[in-house]
C-alpha cells in the first residue's frame, strides 16, 4: 500500500510550503487533482503583506500595526493570538521567499517594492507587478523540485479516512489510470483551497470546489465560520475575472453612471481603499439605487485607471491590462474597466488552531481551506498569500512533534475497507440506475448561492436556499455519469465533488441564517448592525443526524485589540 509519514492534499502555496518544511526529515507525498502549477494560488495578483517598512511612506510600519489592521478588517472576529503570529512571521516569510528566488518588484534602492492596499494603514503589500501568486507558486514549486518531493499529480482524493478521532490517510482516484488507491499516512494535511465555485459568479478557478472542506466535514471534522464569504469588489463583467485590488492601490477610481467617485459617501477617508466587504456593498448599493451602467452582461460600475497613465499601467499592472484586452477587448490605458463584485475568498473552512491542528489527531489543514481564524469576518487584501505560506510553514514545524510522539501506525485494514466502499460509490455513479446529470444540480446550486446567499442576505431568502439545497441533496444519489470508464473522466470527478459541495453550501447557508447580525462580509438586511454581545463568536458546523449540520459556537481569542466601530 502506498504510504507516507505525511500526506499533503493540494499543491498550491500552503501545501508546497508544508511539504518543503517536512521533506528533509520525513517521507512526504503531495496529492493534487491538477499539476501543482495549475493551483489557484497562481492567480493571486496584488501581493503579500509584510511590515518590511521599505516604502518611503511606511518607514514606521510594524508587525503590530499590521496585526491591528487585520483584526479591525476582520470586524473583530479573527483570533488575535493567531493574527499576531501571522503578522510577526510575515517579515521572515517574505525574506525567505525572496532568498528562495521570488522575483519581487524592486524600489530604486534595491529593496522589495511595496504598495498600498485596502484596509491597511501603511503601504505594506509586497508584490511582483500584478502576478505575485504566480511568482510565489513557481518559486515554491521550484524549491519542491530541487528537494525531490514525491507528487501524485492528477489524483483526486475520494475520502478522508478517520476512525475514533484519528486520521489514517485517504482513498484517491488516479485520474489518468482510473484506479482507486488507498494511501496511508501518519499525518494528513489538507491544503485544498476555498469553496468559491459553490457560487455562480466567482473569481475563483474552476477547480475551487471546496470539496476538501466538504470531505473533512463528512469525516466528522468541524468546519468554522462558513457563512463568511468574501465578495471582491472588482471582477470584470461577464467572465468575472479578478481585477486586482492593486488597481485601486495604485490609485484607480470607482465611478458610477453620474461620474461620481461614490466611495466618498461610504468611506470618506479610505475611499477606494476601504476593506473589500465595504467596497463590495457600496458598489452593490449604487447598482440597486440605479447609479450603475447597463450592459447585456449585467449592470456595472467603472474602474478607471486612465489617470495613472500608460507608463504606470504597463509597469505595475501589465497582467490586468492583458486580461482586459484578452477577455473584453478594452485597454485600461484608454478606457475604464466595467466591473461587478463577485465571490472571491472563503474566510470559513476547516476548524484549526494556530498549530494547524483539527479536532482529529493526525489531520491538519492549512491555507484557504482552513479557518484559524486570521481573517475573521473579512480578509484584507494581501493577507491570503501570507496565510498560506505562514501556516504551511507552521504546520511543518508542529507536525514533527506528533510524528515523533503520539502518532500511531495507520490501519491498512481500515483503508482497504474504505477502498472497497469507494469502488462501490464509483460504480453507483458510473453504472447506477439514476438518470440525474451532475451539472443540472451543480448549476442550480451555484445560482441559488449567488442569488440567495450573496452580499446582502435576509431570512426568507436564506430559508429558501436551505430548502433548495435540501432538495438537491435528495436528488444527488440519482446522479449518473455518461461513461463507465474512469480514466480522465472529468464528469466523474465533478460528480464526486458535487456531493461535498452540497454539504459546504448547506453549512454556509445555515450559518448565514443563524447569525442574526451584520459583521464583515456577512450582511443581513434584517439585522443591519454588529452585535458583539450575542455574536462575537465563531460558528462551528459538524454533520449531525440525517446528514443535517449540527451547529455550535466558540469564543474569539483576544490579546489587546478591543472591538470598536469600524470606520474608514
Amino acid at each position, binding site marked *: 500500500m502506498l504510504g507516507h509519514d505525511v500526506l499533503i492534499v493540494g499543491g498550491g502555496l500552503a501545501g508546497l510550503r508544508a511539504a518543503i518544511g517536512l521533506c528533509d526529515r520525513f517521507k512526504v507525498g503531495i496529492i493534487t487533482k*491538477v499539476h501543482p502549477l495549475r493551483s489557484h494560488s497562481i492567480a493571486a495578483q496584488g501581493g503579500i503583506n509584510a511590515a518590511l517598512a521599505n516604502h518611503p511612506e511606511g518607514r514606521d510600519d510594524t508587525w503590530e500595526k499590521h496585526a491591528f489592521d487585520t483584526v479591525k478588517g476582520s470586524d473583530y472576529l479573527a483570533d488575535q493570538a493567531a493574527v499576531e503570529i501571522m503578522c510577526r512571521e510575515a517579515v521572515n516569510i*517574505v525574506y525567505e521567499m525572496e532568498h528562495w528566488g521570488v*522575483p*519581487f518588484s524592486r*524600489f530604486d534602492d*534595491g529593496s522589495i517594492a511595496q504598495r498600498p492596499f485596502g484596509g491597511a494603514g501603511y503601504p505594506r503589500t509586497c508584490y511582483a507587478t500584478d502576478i505575485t501568486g504566480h511568482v510565489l507558486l513557481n518559486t515554491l514549486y521550484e524549491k519542491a*523540485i530541487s528537494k525531490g518531493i514525491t507528487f501524485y499529480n492528477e489524483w483526486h482524493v475520494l475520502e478522508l479516512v478517520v476512525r475514533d478521532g484519528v486520521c489514517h490517510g485517504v482513498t484517491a482516484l488516479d485520474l489518468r489510470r482510473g484506479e482507486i488507491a488507498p494511501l496511508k499516512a501518519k499525518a494528513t494535511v489538507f491544503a485544498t483551497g476555498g469553496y468559491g465555485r459553490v457560487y455562480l459568479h466567482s473569481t475563483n478557478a474552476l477547480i475551487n470546489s471546496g470539496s476538501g472542506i466538504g470531505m473533512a466535514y463528512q469525516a466528522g471534522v468541524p468546519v468554522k465560520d462558513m457563512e463568511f464569504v468574501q465578495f471582491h469588489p472588482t471582477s470584470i463583467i461577464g467572465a468575472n475575472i479578478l481585477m486586482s485590488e492593486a488597481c485601486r492601490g495604485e490609485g484607480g477610481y470607482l465611478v458610477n453612471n453620474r461620474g461620481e467617485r461614490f466611495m466618498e459617501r461610504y468611506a470618506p477617508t479610505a475611499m477606494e481603499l476601504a476593506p473589500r466587504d465595504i467596497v463590495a456593498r457600496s458598489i452593490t448599493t449604487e447598482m440597486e439605487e440605479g447609479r450603475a451602467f447597463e450592459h447585456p452582461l449585467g449592470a456595472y460600475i467603472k474602474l478607471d485607471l486612465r489617470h495613472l497613465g500608460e507608463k504606470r499601467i504597463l509597469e505595475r499592472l501589465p497582467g490586468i491590462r492583458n486580461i482586459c484586452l484578452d*477577455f473584453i477587448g478594452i485597454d485600461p490605458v484608454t478606457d475604464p474597466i466595467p466591473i461587478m463584485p463577485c465571490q472571491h475568498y472563503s474566510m470559513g473552512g476547516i476548524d484549526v488552531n494556530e498549530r494547524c491542528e483539527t479536532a482529529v489527531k493526525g489531520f491538519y489543514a492549512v491555507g484557504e481551506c482552513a479557518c484559524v481564524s486570521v481573517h475573521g469576518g473579512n480578509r484584507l487584501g494581501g493577507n491570503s498569500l501570507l496565510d498560506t505560506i505562514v501556516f504551511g510553514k507552521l504546520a511543518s514545524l508542529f507536525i514533527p512533534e506528533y510524528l515523533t510522539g503520539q502518532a500511531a501506525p495507520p490501519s491498512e485494514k481500515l483503508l482497504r475497507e474504505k477502498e472497497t466502499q469507494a469502488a462501490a460509490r464509483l460504480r453507483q455513479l458510473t453504472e447506477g440506475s439514476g438518470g440525474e446529470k451532475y451539472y443540472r444540480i451543480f448549476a442550480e446550486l451555484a445560482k441559488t448561492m449567488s442569488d440567495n446567499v450573496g452580499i446582502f442576505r435576509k431570512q426568507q431568502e436564506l430559508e429558501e436556499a436551505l430548502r433548495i439545497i435540501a432538495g438537491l441533496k435528495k436528488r444527488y444519489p440519482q446522479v449518473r455519469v*455518461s461513461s463507465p470508464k474512469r480514466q480522465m473522466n472529468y464528469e466523474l470527478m465533478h460528480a464526486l465533488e458535487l456531493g461535498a459541495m452540497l454539504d459546504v453550501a448547506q453549512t454556509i447557508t445555515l450559518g448565514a441564517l443563524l447569525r442574526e447580525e451584520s459583521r464583515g462580509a456577512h450582511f443581513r438586511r434584517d439585522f443591519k448592525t454588529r452585535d458583539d454581545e450575542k455574536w462575537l463568536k465563531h460558528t462551528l458546523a459538524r454533520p449531525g443526524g440525517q446528514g443535517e449540520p449540527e451547529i455550535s459556537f466558540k469564543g474569539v481569542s483576544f490579546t489587546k485589540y478591543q472591538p470598536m466601530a469600524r470606520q474608514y
Partner: protein
Amino acid sequence: MIRDDYYTFKILRYDAMERSLEPFLASYRVKVIPGLTVLAVLIRIRDEIDGTLAFRSSCRAAVCGSCAMVINGKIDLACRTQVAPFDTDTIILEPLPNLEIIKDLVVDLTPFWANYEKIMPWLVRKSPAPEKEIPQSAAARHSFDQYVNCILCASCYGACPVPSRDPGYLGPHAFAKLERFMGDSRDERSASTLAVVNHEQGVWGCDTVFRCIDACPKDVRPTDAIVALRKRLVKYKTKQMLGMGKDED
C-alpha cells in the same frame, strides 16, 4: 444587442486506453454569444452534450496554463480565445502537437516537465543568506521579466518543429526557464552548468524559426533566451580558451 449564432465544433477524440480505435473528429453544434470563449464552449459540450469529452482547465483567466490546444490550426489557450471573432462558423480543436494524447484534448506532459527539471529550475545561491532581502536593482529585476511571465502551458513546445524529429530536444520552455535564472543577478550557479544545454538537443538544436514566439500566450520570447544562452556559452568557451575559464566553483 448581443447576437448569437450557431457554430460547429469539430473536436479530436481519442482514447489511449483503446488503441484499436483511430482518432476522429467529432462534431458538436453549439449556440455561441459574443464574448464566449472556446473553454466555455468546451465546458458546455461536456456538461450538456457529451460527458465523455476530456480537456484540462483551471483558472479560465489565462494564467494557469492548463488549456493550451490547437484552435483552428493555431496554438492558444482555450480560455482566452473567443469564438465570435473567427471568420468561420466551424472551429476545429486538436490537442497540442509533439506530445502523446492521453484522451481527447489531454496530452501527456511528462517529457515537457522532465526537460524543465533537467535545467535545474531554481535559484542557486552559494553566498550566505542576508538578514533582509538580497538587493537587486529595479533595472536588474526588469532584465529577465519576460521569462518570469512564462506559465509553462507548453504552447511553445507544441509549436516547435524540433521535438517531432528529435524527442530528446529540451524545448523552448526549458531554455526560457534557464535564462530566467541566468539573467537573475541573484543566481550564483557556475557557468559550467550551461553544459546541460550545450549540445544539439540543447540550444544548438533550435531551428530559429520563431514559432515558439508566435505561440506564446504571455509574450515570452524563448528564442531570445536561446540566443542569450548561446552567447553565454561562447563567452564561457572563449574565457576557457584564454585560460580564464576556471569555473567559479
